[in-house]
């Protein structure tokens, strides 16, 4: 195929579709088509293809297709919006829950800190009162009351207080009183008492027969 043929061949689709506005070029193509058999053949083939594609209903939609398209699009958009909204609500719920948790934690911390400046009173079993204002640094007992400068928690405070009872021996609790009332025995006393109540004959009778025999044998050996 010559260069001129290729040039006109490129213009053919545009010429068939009527897209060539240049009148001179149009005349040139028409003149070439009359003289060039090969180009004319190509023109006929292309024209057939174009007319087939233009006339065909191969790509037509089913009947009433376009009547139902818009409602279906809107339905899908609504569903998509609803899905997004649900996701947003879930995200917000999560965010609010998280915020509440943080708020609770902060509140708890704040309450704990505010307790540092409160006076704690612990009523003891002997009706004495334990009063603290600041963390325990030193404890002193005045008139059945422990007044300290520092404290940590009420539980710790009570433990420390009970330790102080043993060392200072100033405050007597009800338990201490009860403890003092318990009567203790000396070790020797207990042994004596045991011997006093021990009945060898009774103990011998409690033994099984073969044990009794053994005891008797041992007893005889001892005699020898």
């Amino acid at each position: 195929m010559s260069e001129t043929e290729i040039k006109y061949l490129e213009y053919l689709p545009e010429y068939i579709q009527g897209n060539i506005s240049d009148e001179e070029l149009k005349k040139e193509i028409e003149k070439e088509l009359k003289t060039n058999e090969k180009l004319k053949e190509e023109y006929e083939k292309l024209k057939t293809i174009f007319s087939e594609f233009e006339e065909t209903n191969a790509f037509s939609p089913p009947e009433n297709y376009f009547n139902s398209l818009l409602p279906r699009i809107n339905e899908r958009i609504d569903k998509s919006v609803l899905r997004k909204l649900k996701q947003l609500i879930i995200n917000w719920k999560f965010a609010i829950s998280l915020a509440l948790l943080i708020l609770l934690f902060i509140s708890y911390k704040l309450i704990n800190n505010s307790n540092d400046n409160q006076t704690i009173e612990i009523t003891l079993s002997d009706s004495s009162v334990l009063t603290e204002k600041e963390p325990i640094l030193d404890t002193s007992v005045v008139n059945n009351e422990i007044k300290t400068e520092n404290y940590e928690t009420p539980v710790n405070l009570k433990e420390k207080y009970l330790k102080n009872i043993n060392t200072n021996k100033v405050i007597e609790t009800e338990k201490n009183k009860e403890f003092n009332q318990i009567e203790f025995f000396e070790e020797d006393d207990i042994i004596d008492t045991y011997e006093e109540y021990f009945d060898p004959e009774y103990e011998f009778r409690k033994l099984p027969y073969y044990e009794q025999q053994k005891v008797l044998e041992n007893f005889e050996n001892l005699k020898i």
Partner: protein
Amino acid sequence: MNDNTKPILEDDTELIEKCKSGNRSSFNKIVLKYQKMVYNITRKILINHDDADEITQAVFIKLYKSLNQFRGESKLTTYLYRITVNMSLNHLKKINLNKSRIQKSIELENMSDNTTTYKDVELREKENFIRKSIESLPPQQRAVFILRFYENLSYDEISQILGTSVGGLKANFFHALKNLRIFFENNNYRNIF
């Protein structure tokens, strides 16, 4: 540009602005105006009606979601063409993995018609042949051929839509025609070729 789209373009800007402010009826008007254009392109690229229907809906849903980002730098039609062609070509890639599906759907489409006369059978065969000829084209050539031949778009407009140079598009169109001619020749269409 296609003459049929000119009156539509007149109030596109107004419709878009209304859409952006949440006016759903304006969006509905856009759908009604462009539904045929979108369907025709997707149908010719994808061949199968069900796929074309799916992508047509997806195109308008995407348009609805992306209208707020639409700055109006290009025409709405160009924007729509771009979404339509891109989504169709992406879908085509997916369905090309299972080519037999298209063939089956074409056969089912033909079988669903209760036409028995010789003329009708001939017509169905012809339609099937046209579908197959388009299907024989590679995706890019198919898209260029449809936009140039059916939509009658200029190469500059197609270049904006596909993001390809005008020279490349001309080559694509030329090769598409050549391939179609070969397909017609190989099948000895109407004893002309």
